């Protein structure tokens, strides 16, 4: 056995023994003898429902949990030790303005034994004492509890870290930035409990802070603080973080535009909820900055369905632009992906059937001149590193944020608009030109009859012709073989 192993073994034994000792300690605590006087107090105070009423109407239950008290570090103390002036035969009537005032008074009881220089050795207490000098007194029981103060052995004094932090942060604390802005440090515990992060402790996000440490940090402004705080998200959501790095918002931020949104601007902070299925919220988030586009979108088929009918099938901003790796929508690469984006829904029968829309629109685009060309441009980019040129995609005719339904629109009006769209690439085209495109229709006897008939003719003629020629060839060979 090496010396190292030996050391380890000894360490292990010590741990084991101390564990036993601790347990014994607990057993002792439970067995702690409660003084007769205390037993008399508890006759009333172990009953639920007895309340003390403050001057301002607030109430406080005077119930004491006997079990917790027995387990507490103060189980050797009798009631009058803390509650001076009270005894078996004295129960003075006292008045307090409010619950808060009462708690502050009660804290002084603790300080009778726990002197300032003793408690100041813990940094968290030191900072609270500093606060006290400024007039904001801490309440011991907020963190430690009153009748249930637990032993420090084992490290955990508090039932939860959250309770500990909320001891201060449920009050209207206030942080002042260098530029004079203020941030309320009050945290809404109920919102926190409803958030997706309700299983996390405070220090999981606010790293560096704990019951031991409460570093003082200085930020120039509220915005700087938000940007810095967002950094914490990447510790868990690293995938999203790297995606965001590819996005325009991050690029803006890196350029020095501090108004570019960071995680918390869209997701919030303590009240983060899942917004995946609250699509209206997503749109509203983007509106914070992109107001004009929101106005246009809200009038489109997609936007009005979402905002008026709360339709969850329609695309919201992030369906096309993505949420984190938002690209520049004016690039060729982005343009090449547009038909796919539209196809996500418009080629999905399950969705389209609900609205009586055809799923053939994507196919008819992709098998026509523009669509085929686009397909090759995409392949070229991938395989030859040779990007194509700008070519018409869905949005060039239908628009982007302003897409409207073509149902019931006057055909002439529609065509007139279409010519303008064609002219973006095909200069000086006449009004006839848009008819070159069969508007997503399959040629039929009613729609584009000439196209349909020519196709039909060849469909019949080609096989007949080929069959005739092959037959002649076969006969010719047969004759040759017979003649030999």
């Amino acid at each position: 056995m090496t010396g190292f192993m030996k050391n380890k073994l000894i360490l292990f034994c010590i741990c084991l023994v101390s564990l036993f000792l601790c347990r014994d300690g607990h057993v002792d605590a439970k067995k702690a003898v409660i003084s007769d006087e205390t037993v008399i107090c508890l006759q009333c105070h172990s009953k639920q429902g007895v309340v003390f009423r403050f001057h301002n109407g607030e109430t406080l239950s005077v119930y004491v949990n006997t079990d917790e008290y027995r387990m507490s570090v103060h189980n050797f103390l009798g009631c009058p030790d803390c509650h001076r002036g009270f005894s078996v035969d004295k129960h003075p009537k006292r008045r307090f303005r409010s619950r808060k005032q009462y708690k502050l008074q009660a804290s002084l009881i603790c300080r009778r034994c726990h002197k300032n220089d003793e408690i100041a050795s813990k940094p968290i207490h030191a900072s609270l004492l500093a606060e006290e000098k400024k007039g904001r007194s801490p309440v011991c029981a907020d963190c430690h509890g009153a009748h249930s103060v637990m032993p420090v052995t084992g490290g955990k004094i508090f039932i939860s870290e959250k309770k500990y932090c909320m001891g201060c942060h449920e009050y209207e604390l206030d942080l002042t930035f260098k530029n004079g802005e203020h941030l309320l440090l009050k945290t809404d515990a109920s919102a926190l409990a409803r958030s997706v992060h309700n299983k996390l402790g405070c220090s999981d996000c606010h790293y560096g802070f704990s019951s031991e440490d409460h570093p003082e940090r200085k930020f120039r402004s509220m915005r700087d603080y938000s940007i810095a705080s967002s950094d914490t998200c990447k510790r868990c959501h690293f995938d999203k973080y790297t995606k965001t790095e590819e996005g325009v918002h991050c690029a803006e931020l890196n350029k020095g535009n501090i108004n570019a949104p960071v995680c918390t601007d869209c997701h919030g902070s303590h009240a983060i909820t899942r917004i995946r299925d609250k699509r209206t919220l997503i749109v509203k988030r983007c509106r914070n900055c992109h107001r004009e586009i929101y106005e246009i979108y809200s009038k489109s088929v997609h936007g009005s369905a979402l905002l008026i009918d709360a339709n969850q099938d329609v695309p919201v901003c992030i369906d096309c632009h993505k949420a984190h790796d938002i690209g520049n929508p004016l690039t060729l690469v982005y343009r090449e992906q547009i038909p796919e984006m539209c196809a996500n829904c418009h080629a999905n029968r399950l969705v389209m059937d609900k609205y009586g829309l055809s799923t053939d629109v994507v196919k008819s685009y992709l098998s026509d001149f523009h669509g085929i060309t686009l397909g090759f441009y995409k392949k070229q980019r991938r395989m030859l590193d040779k990007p194509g040129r700008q070519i018409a995609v869905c949005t060039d005719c239908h628009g982007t944020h302003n897409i409207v339904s073509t149902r019931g629109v006057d055909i002439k009006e529609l065509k007139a608009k279409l010519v303008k769209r064609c002219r973006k690439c095909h200069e000086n085209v006449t009004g006839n030109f848009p008819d070159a495109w069969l508007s997503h229709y399959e040629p039929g006897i009613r729609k584009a009859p000439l196209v349909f008939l020519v196709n039909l003719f060849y469909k019949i003629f080609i096989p007949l012709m080929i069959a005739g020629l092959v037959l002649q060839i076969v006969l010719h060979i047969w004759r040759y073989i017979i003649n030999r």
Partner: protein
Amino acid sequence: MNDIRDEKIRRFSNYRIIEHWVLLITFIILVLTGLSQKFYYLAVSQWFILRIGGIDSLRYVHHYTALVFLSLVTVHVIVAVSGIVFKKWRPSMVITGKDFTDAADNIKYYIGMKDHPAACDRYNYKQKFEYWVVLMGAIVMIASGLVLWFPVFATQFLPGEIIPVAKVLHSNEALLIFLIIAIWHIYNAIFSPEVFPLDTSIFTGYISRERMISEHPLELERMEGTDTGERGADIGVDGIEAKS
């Protein structure tokens, strides 16, 4: 017997030889660059198109080869028409009633209802069929191809629907001529037992007396009957002897 196989008779002038070469090359290029667009979804087409350097390069090749093809056809038509009008060439490619009876007779011969094949003149009905398929096809391809190439121009005079019509015409006609040439012409010029492994007449300009006797007896008769042995001397630019 050997001498009629060895004896060569002039059949095509150099102009025809060059014309056929140009046709052959442009046609193959147009078919490759055209049909790969028609069947764009096939793996071979995609491989080919990317090989050429992408869809734009492919179309570039198609368009400029089409220009050569267009010039060839135009020159051919001008030469043929003016040859017949001014130089009094025999209109040997014109389809006549005899071609239909020849075709019927030949089929009867194949199935054993006659004991010889039809006696043909300079071009038999198969060759005439091919010629007209290519010529008419070329006109359709050129007309529809130009509409597709210059759609903005075309719709200044014609309704917009002309573009998809031109597209289906061009696309289907391309497939039709391609199949006819690939099956019928290639069989007749390469795989037919009479000419296998290759009918060299359009490349060398000469054909054997043996084949003249069996395939173009009427032409041979006219040639031998009128001249004194100097065959080919009065062969016009078309390879068609001038009517003297």
